[in-house]
């Protein structure tokens, strides 16, 4: 949903509403698979790059759901960044989330992030811009245009300088919110995401 709100279909520059969804090997990547499926339902044309597939049965089912919905899976990510800029309107970064530690140093993530650092089309990062330290943020890492914080913003979100910051955490029960002093903003109507003001 946040991808759709940030980039409504009619506003996309390319004729086809193409979106590249780059999925890492763990939970963040699995969330990317679910996101890709919903983008498809919303009439976008997602393509997935999922080089290191999780053996988790739940995540394998997510993969099957995407395949059966005719969402193509790339066999490699072009290192020629212009190819990505030309083919897609935006990239969803679902490579590494808050759980990643040395993940960004290992292949294939390191190569992916090196490429993504140079794309000119907008990047939508899920939870944590991949490669950023979850608390300190990053210098010289990827610069997403949109950040979707899951449950609640992480510390590194303070360093986010992109256009739009959404929180997707409406499923959190009140006592969990209170216990962790999350103080989430009000979600409008029945929306599952709320836009926070992007810090400047």
């Amino acid at each position, binding site marked *: *949903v946040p991808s*759709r*709100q940030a980039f*409504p279909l009619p506003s996309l520059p390319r004729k086809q509403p193409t979106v590249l969804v780059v999925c890492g090997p763990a939970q963040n990547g699995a969330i990317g698979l679910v996101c890709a499926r919903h983008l*498809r*339902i*919303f009439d976008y044309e997602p393509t997935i790059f999922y080089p290191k597939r999780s053996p988790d049965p*739940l995540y*394998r*089912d997510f993969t*099957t*759901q995407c395949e*059966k*919905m*005719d969402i193509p899976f790339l066999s490699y990510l072009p290192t020629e960044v212009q190819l990505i800029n030309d083919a897609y309107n935006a990239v969803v970064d679902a490579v590494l989330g808050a759980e990643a530690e040395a993940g960004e140093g290992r292949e294939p993530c390191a190569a992916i992030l090196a490429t993504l650092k140079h794309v000119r089309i907008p990047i939508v990062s899920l939870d944590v811009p991949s490669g950023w330290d979850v608390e300190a943020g990053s210098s010289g890492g990827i610069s997403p245009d949109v950040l979707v914080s899951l449950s609640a913003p992480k510390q590194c979100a303070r360093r986010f300088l992109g256009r739009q910051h959404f929180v997707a955490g*409406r*499923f959190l*029960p*009140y*006592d969990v919110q209170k216990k962790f002093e999350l103080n989430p903003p009000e979600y409008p*109507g*029945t929306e599952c995401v709320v836009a926070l003001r992007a810090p400047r």
Partner: protein
Amino acid sequence: RGSELPLTLQSRGPARFRGPQGCHPPSLPRQEEAQAIDQELFTEYKFSVDQLMELAGLSCATAIAKAYPPSSFTSQPAVLVVCGPGNNGGDGLVCARHLKMFGYEPAVYYPKRPNKPLFEGLTTQCQKMDIPFLPEFPAEAALIDELYGLVVDAIFGFSFKGAVREPFGSILNTLEHITVPIASIDIPSGWDVEKGKVDGLQPDMLISLTAPKKAAMHFAGRYHFLGGRFVPAALQKKYALNLPPYPETDCVLQLT
């Protein structure tokens, strides 16, 4: 008591569907077709029951919020959610949880609970969110009218066949006499899934999941919503569902 009805919407009698071009109405699956679609989602597409139930329950809560916003209730936005013994009941539990998130005060009556982790988990989620589970069903229709502004009927769904077993027979009898609106999930409970039931429950709202079933032709309430926005295009084509397009990223579509 009860919700104030928006003045612009009136009952137009039995629902008429308009397909995308206005001349190809959605095809209304029969019971076996509806079951076949579900089966294909689970076995071919590898969706889990949890996934689809969550999306279905969220659709129901969203549709209810659109038709009966909390501000439309005369006092507290209290909703009674009556959950049956199967998947329709599970949809109701998910719906109750989202209604709570949306600012309603749901209470659940769930007399026959399956011994399965899915339903136990959904029950725990509701309980941990302080949604009360009633120890008994309100004895009289008048009491329901007094305490609640809306009843969600999550008793029986599209797999329902044959006779209604207790305690649901008595429950349906009581519900047939309440004056506050009823929102039925997928099939008005007690109706034949294809033919309806002339002297049965008359809900004000129907939320058809995946696609409207044949019984929906007999629905005479004010609000008919489509929910369950997860059917892949290929499956829609295979069963010639001809579903009209959902608006933007909404998970529900108002049909009438």
